[in-house]
């Protein structure tokens, strides 16, 4: 809007106000009706669908698939689109770039779209982008709602006692928060480990990787696990290195 259009808007708005109605009661009554309805609905839901008590936090159980509140589903679903499979889908797109670009775009919307037109049917770009954003948010949220809930452990055959202990450690230390084995665990940001054994890593490589992921995989975003005992490192490494080959 240029200066003239801004002045015109202000003049027109002053007219609208002069010919308008007092805030109280004409606008207030509508506000109160809708707000009362909304609060009533919340009370209705609280009675009709009470919130259950979940399972207490226990890092050693086997059935936790991280599940956020529904309004974060779309962010989790982004992780399934960008999961480091190839150069076009780096994880950082889902964890950082896309959310932040959207956030900034949202913040600066009024400084991008500065035309004087306010009727949506005369603003094709705003209309299309608005509808598209709503469609994709809805779609991703729907996908998130459909994705499997709590699982009952990871079924793997031929586990040796050492690998069994490795599995326990794997489950107990939140690895499933970033990795999946046979559909159990989060689909990202870490790679699926179902066939980790086929990569031909050595036991020592796995141990070094756990102690400091950046020493073996430069630029890795996986957190370091420097506090296991030697035996625990051994168990985890044996477990990881057999995945997809010995243990399937």
């Amino acid at each position, binding site marked *: 809007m240029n200066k003239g259009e801004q002045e015109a808007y202000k003049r027109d708005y002053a007219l*609208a106000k002069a010919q308008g109605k007092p805030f109280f009661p004409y606008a207030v009554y509508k506000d109160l009706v809708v707000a009362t309805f909304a609060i009533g609905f919340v009370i209705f839901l609280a009675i009709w669908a009470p919130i259950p008590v979940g399972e207490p936090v226990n890092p050693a159980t086997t059935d936790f698939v991280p599940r956020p509140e529904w309004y974060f589903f779309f962010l*989790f679903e982004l992780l399934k689109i960008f999961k480091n499979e190839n150069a076009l889908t780096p994880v950082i797109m889902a*964890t950082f770039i896309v959310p932040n670009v959207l956030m900034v775009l949202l913040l600066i919307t009024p400084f991008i779209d500065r035309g004087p037109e306010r009727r949506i049917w005369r603003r094709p770009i705003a209309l299309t982008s608005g509808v598209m954003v709503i469609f994709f948010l809805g779609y991703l949220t729907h996908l998130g709602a459909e994705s499997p809930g709590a699982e009952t452990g990871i079924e793997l055959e031929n586990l040796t006692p050492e690998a069994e202990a490795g599995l326990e450690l794997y489950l107990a230390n939140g690895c499933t928060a970033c990795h999946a084995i046979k559909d159990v665990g989060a689909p990202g940001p870490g790679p699926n480990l179902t066939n980790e054994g086929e990569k031909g890593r050595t036991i020592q490589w796995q141990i070094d990787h756990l102690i400091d992921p950046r020493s073996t995989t430069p630029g890795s975003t996986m957190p370091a696990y420097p506090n296991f005992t030697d035996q625990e490192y051994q168990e985890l490494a044996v477990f990881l290195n057999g995945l997809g080959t010995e243990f399937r």
Partner: protein
Amino acid sequence: MSTQDIETQTPSPDGEGAAVGAEDIAPKGAMKGAIEKTGDYVDERSGLVTGHKWFLFRNVPGETSWFQTLGFTAMALFGLQAITGIVLAMYYKPDPNTAFQSIQFITNDATWGSLVRGMHRWGASAMIVVVFLHMARVFFWGAYKYPRELTWVTGVILMFMTMFMGLTGYLLVWDQKAYWATVVAVNITASAPVLGPFVADILRAGPEFGPNTLSRFYAIHMLVIPGGIATFIALHLLLITKLGIAEPPWAKRRFRAAREEEAERERMRARTPAGREPVPASPSFEPPQSWPSKDVS
């Protein structure tokens, strides 16, 4: 207050409203006088009463729509969250050893506990939905355009803070689902370049999830963000009352005004001597019948 009350009270010369008139001797009249005097006293020193009247009785455009109630509804839901949250805080214990039990107690044993907890959880979802719808209405109406750009910016910040409330509140239940979801969310934060690891450390209160993480989330959820939201709602409302609420883009008044503007331009065009802008240079130009006319006003 009936008109009669006003008539009997206002003429009183020394401002003592309750002093004259037969009804005013009755206790009710005296009471009213006292209230009015208190009101005047406060108003003289604070401007609160006048300010209130200005706030309530100022004009808004005539054709306000039901879509424009969503902001107020978001505010009402925030109030509801504050109230149910305070009640929950009276029973909740932010310690990894007791948090889960206190949630269990609230849900199963405390009087109305399940209701209050349910309202707080569903209220959070409802608030997200309502804030999103409010934002959609502002977007599709172009209500963020001049002069309301900053109202939009404060609104976006409000929305992010509302979502962050959801994230921090989720962990407080200290159950499996919430715990692991939060671990992932914080790990994702940690993987962001440059600031990520710092922010994650701040959230976790250290490099790992531990007892301090819970009390940190509690403090953020209870004090930091609600304070931020309250501040930004105040800013948001300040801007809204200052700028006035937008008129629906399809308001009949607007269309009428547009038609009149068009007609006015038409008249101007008709009055402008031939050959000068904005008359289109057309060889077949013929002065309209109304030109030259007398209504040159």
